[in-house]
């Protein structure tokens, strides 16, 4: 059934979001930098390679276990820049606030943004605030944009995965997605799962310092690990094989996913990365990831193969094989 209205599916980060970007945005803003469709734009300014990225944050609830919309907005853009291989430097912050929003909560959000910026080592150098009449926005929306410079020896992009590359995952998946789900209005589950929201730029800097063979960096946010791997397989025209038993999933995350019929492969992460690294460098890079506070559970979860270009396969825990497809739309809890 075709639709003439925007549905929530259009924002899910899956196939339907991609289709909207491809069919509606790309033809209008047609240029080679945008066409790369990386986490951020990469281009040269006066001989210096620069990464530039933007993201808007509309998370509901705005306060969730492990963080709030403020630090998410800072870390999100910092991480998008880091995934371009850049050292994030300057951020802009724009706030759209609903009339009647408690000042105390706004202060808490801004304080969290300040701490996050300090933690990530970036400066917020410009910004904007708008207040809209009650009901015209849901509490608060935040947009951040950021600029970073890319060191000379770093050259990553999602089309650069090569057969033989090891796939490194920096830790457990779906923590953020589950922490948000568990806090959503109407869902009264008690869970100890905290969002994993964290800056990844320090980890990336450490990785790039030890390994020149890093080909792809990606933070599997909206759409989760499954969608991110599919995008890389497609852009690199390479096959990816992963092993289910190597992918860390916290027991409480697995439990809630099972209950609701969700696949953790497609739930959001906000402080995890995947790296495609030449086999020779994989051990050193993995060690650098593990040395970071957010990367202790890192593991090599798979490899790039010459077979089945564009497709992701997973060896299941019982030793079977299955395809991992891209998420089609928003995941919906099931009825049993």
């Amino acid at each position: 059934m075709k639709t003439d209205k925007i549905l929530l599916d259009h924002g899910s980060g899956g196939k339907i979001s991609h289709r909207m970007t491809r069919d509606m945005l790309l033809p209008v803003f047609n240029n080679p930098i945008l066409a790369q469709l990386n986490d951020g734009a990469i281009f040269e300014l006066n001989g210096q390679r620069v990464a530039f990225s933007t993201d808007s944050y509309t998370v509901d609830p705005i306060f969730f276990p492990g963080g709030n919309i403020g630090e998410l907005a800072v870390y999100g853009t910092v991480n998008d820049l880091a995934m371009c291989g850049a050292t994030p430097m300057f951020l802009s912050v724009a706030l759209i606030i609903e009339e009647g929003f408690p000042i105390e909560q706004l202060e808490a959000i801004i304080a969290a943004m300040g701490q996050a910026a300090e933690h990530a080592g970036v400066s917020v150098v410009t910004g904007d605030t708008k207040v809209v009449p009650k009901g015209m926005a849901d509490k608060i929306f935040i947009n951040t944009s950021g600029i970073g410079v890319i060191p000379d020896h770093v050259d990553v992009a999602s089309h650069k995965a090569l057969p033989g590359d090891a796939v490194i995952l920096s830790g457990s998946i779906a923590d953020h997605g589950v922490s948000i789900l568990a806090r959503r209005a109407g869902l009264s589950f008690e869970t100890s799962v905290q969002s994993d929201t964290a800056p990844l730029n320090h980890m990336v800097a450490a990785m790039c310092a030890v390994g020149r063979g890093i080909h792809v960096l990606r933070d599997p946010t909206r759409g989760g690990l499954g969608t991110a791997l599919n995008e890389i397989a497609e852009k690199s025209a390479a096959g990816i094989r992963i092993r289910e038993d190597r992918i860390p999933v916290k027991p409480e995350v697995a439990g809630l996913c099972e209950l609701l019929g969700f696949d953790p492969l497609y739930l959001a992460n906000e402080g995890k990365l995947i790296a495609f690294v030449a086999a020779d460098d994989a051990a050193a890079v993995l060690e650098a990831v593990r040395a970071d506070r957010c990367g202790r559970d890192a593991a090599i979860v798979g490899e790039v193969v010459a077979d089945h270009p564009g497709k992701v396969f997973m060896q299941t825990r019982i030793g079977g094989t299955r395809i991992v497809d891209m998420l089609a739309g928003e995941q919906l809890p099931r009825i049993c």
Partner: protein
Amino acid sequence: MSIKHIEEYRDSTLARQLSEKIRRLSRRKIRLMEVCGTHTVSIFRSGIRSLLPETISLLSGPGCPVCVTDQAEIDAFIELARQKDVIVTTFGDLMRVPGSASSLQRERAEGRDIRMVYSTMDAVGLAQQNPGRHVVFLGVGFETTAPTIAAAILTAAGLKLENFSVISAHKVVPPALEALMTVDGARIDGFILPGHVSVIIGLKAYRPFFERHRMPCVVAGFEPGDILQAVAMLVEQFETGRPRLENAYPRAVAQEGNLKAQQVLTQVFQIGDACWRGIGRIPDSGLQIRASYAAYDAGRRFALHLPEPKTPRGCACGEILTGQKTPPECALYKKVCTPIDPVGPCMVSSEGTCAAYYRYHYDELEAQS
């Protein structure tokens, strides 16, 4: 049950032992139907097919509640959402199911108040918080969910809530097995019976069906080890020519089932005929709200004027739900019908056969292995 305990059923050693046993036992071609959508998804997700010999075909049955919800029922849900001062509450799966002319998801984008809930009790709570509006819960599901919906109705009755009701499209499983036996092209040699449903109704509920048809039947849990165990038992019954009704999920399923849940169920619901999408009317296969709880029956409270339902042309949902076809044999599959633009409900629900095929099935995989 602890996670650790579940891990045992996901163990690769156990899986290998069971798949070797199945390979040893299986001589003749056998067609086994997993009735339950959760089984279908587990089979795909764990890659069970890649561990089975060629002699074994697994067919997906009519056990995804969203998939068997009749078009007329979907149209009624949508019509309810259009009523003045009504809040429609539903489990998530239903949002995208196409009715004759719309879907709940599209209605929500049009501004109707449709909310996803995770428990019927949340819908009761919503009614309490919104005394000026009427909250309707869309009751879709099998014996597994029906008792919780019955309990919600009893709670609402206890609270004397006047603004809460349920539209019941609930269905029960055993009569569907009977209906499948009359389908020509299905050629089913054995049933993998649903675990969750059996927790409620017990092994005894299948006894009359089994006695009539002497068909291999095994109740299975949902971990890969559970399913492989059930397949091994079915193959053994089939090869030895001794059909039985067996329980491969004794850690959850008892002979008598959950008597308390059954009692709540029969207090609120009575058995009646029901229309299953793709199959048609099956006698005594539905759950209707009893007259004594008519105040909580949205079907009675709202006079809905529904046009004749328009079933999508070319959609093979019916043949797929009954094991006569697999999704790739449907002309619309992946071409016109995708999870984004689904034609039939089997492509919508995460537990629908077509959606599971779309997400997990890859033809070349078989070619490779």
